[in-house]
């Protein structure tokens, strides 16, 4: 295999492998977004639970923090004996990583609600579920969305490494390229990942703006 690295050869690699790059990009998005969706559901749920049971706040956020600090390659490795390799352990690892920011943002978003608002809601006779659905979640939404955005961008990055345990995605090109000192291949994986990360960030910024209730838009 030749490794020149000129702009032209990079371009020709892209053109010749367009289908592959496209397929890997989709795989990458799939792994990252599946993890975002599942970890949002879990993280927001846990975040809500700890606003109700204050005793759990410190241990839950503590554990999520510890998980967050585990190096990703080590976490992938830890999961292999239990789940094996492939997409499954990758998604599970990404879900675990996302928990800290999702739980914390949900918790902060809900607990930052003005005490007077809580008292008024209770005093007016809203049930706990009504208050959650009509007040707490909508008011906390911008903060929760910011958490989801962080988790999503993080997942795009970490999913690259997940190629190492057979989860596919653009990381596959990078690892292959490194192993065979094939610059064009490395770049064919790296550039789309970078664009994907930037694009994801931007997409979630727009989504956040769109979902923020009009009455809260002045805050940001």
């Amino acid at each position, binding site marked *: 295999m030749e490794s020149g690295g000129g702009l032209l050869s990079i371009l020709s690699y892209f053109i010749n492998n367009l289908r592959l790059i496209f397929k890997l990009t989709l795989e990458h998005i799939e792994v990252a977004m599946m993890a975002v969706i599942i970890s949002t559901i879990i993280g927001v749920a846990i975040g809500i639970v700890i606003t109700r049971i204050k005793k759990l706040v410190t241990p839950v956020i503590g554990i999520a923090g510890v998980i967050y600090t585990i190096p990703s390659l080590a976490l992938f490795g830890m999961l292999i004996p239990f789940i094996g390799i492939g997409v499954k352990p990758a998604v599970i690892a990404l879900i675990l990583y996302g928990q800290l920011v999702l739980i914390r943002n949900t918790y902060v978003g809900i607990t930052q609600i003005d005490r007077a*608002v809580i008292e*008024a*809601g*209770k*005093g007016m*006779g809203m049930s706990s579920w009504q208050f959650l659905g009509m*007040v707490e979640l909508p*008011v906390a939404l911008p903060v929760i969305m910011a958490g989801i955005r962080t988790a999503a961008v993080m997942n795009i990055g970490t999913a690259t490494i997940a190629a190492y345990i057979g989860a596919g995605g653009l990381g596959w090109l990078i690892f292959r390229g490194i192993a065979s000192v094939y610059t064009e291949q490395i770049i064919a994986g790296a550039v789309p990942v970078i664009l994907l990360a930037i694009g994801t960030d931007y997409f979630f910024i727009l989504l956040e703006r769109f979902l923020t209730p009009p*009455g*809260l838009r002045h805050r940001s």
Partner: protein
Amino acid sequence: MAHTIIRFDKVSKFFPGGTKAVDDLSFEIYEGECVVFLGPSGCGKTTTIKLLNRLEHPTDGTIYLNGKDTSKIDVIALRRSIGYVIQDVGLFPHMTVAQNISLVPRLIGWSITTQETRVDELLRLVDLEPSAFRDRYPHQLSGGQRQRVGVARGLAADPPVILMDEPFGALDPITRAQLQDEFLRLRSKIKKTILFVTHDIDEAIKLGDRIAVMRTGKIVQFDTPKKIMGEPADEFVKDFVGKDCGLKLMKLLRISDIMVPALNNITERSGVVEAKKLMEERKSDILLVVDDQGVFQGVIRFELLTNRNQGSVKGLMDRDIPTVKTEEEIRATLELMLKKGVVWLPVVDEEERLKGIVTMTHFACFFSSEGWNQEGAS
């Protein structure tokens, strides 16, 4: 006696650590009255009203609403039947003014059109133009406007009882006075039982039908503003209501409280002779002239009649006479009299009909007898 709507029976509330927030309270509140809970911070006044809508739970005792033990009523239904207005308003920041106001009606399933009509009606009631304010968000309102919306929200589902926890406490003095005046105007329009918490004695006197003065979880005195000021139960109440309660009391009185009926009046169609005869009878050299509907027209003076023996009084009367309304405050009336240099004023109602007169002598008599106590005046 009026119907009892709320009854506290030996109610106590102890907080963990043994603080007695409310200590063995028993009292009754009648339908339609405004009871003000007054006292220094930490006296248990807020806890007392929160016990009613079960934001606080009594350690001991029973609270009855319309004869029913509140602990046996579903807490959500109970709260929806009691309006709740608090100092920091607590408007939902992501909802418009209309959505905030219609929240309880929405929860209890009113139709959309009924909700919309109600929102506009309430906005007008609290003096906010519906078309301008309906779709605004709380952050686009001033402090006073927010509290108006808060009050409208408390009234939304037409609850018979409303709890107001220092609703005007966070506002600047001018806005506060304005909202207090509107509160009074509102009360004359809607019949509600109101439990109002404040630490401001002036507010309590102005707004309360009765005042419960509280200290360390107990009610020290529960009486009308007049009685609280005139006959404070102990040194604490006396200190709390302050030294100038005579002046405060003056704010409470309306002209209708001290006026006397106008006896020497005459219709404008009466003849000069008739007028002279009446003056003779009443030993008066001035008559008040009214039209057939009793609307005040002016006065006729003896010196104007001396050389006349025919015709009606209509053309002879002095029409340039200041009047005062029955609902006017005493202090403002005194000011008017001093400014105009008059010693008496005709009193008229909203339709300008003559109701009576007030004179400087009446003020003096009134303050030296009932309603004006010696200590207060000192």
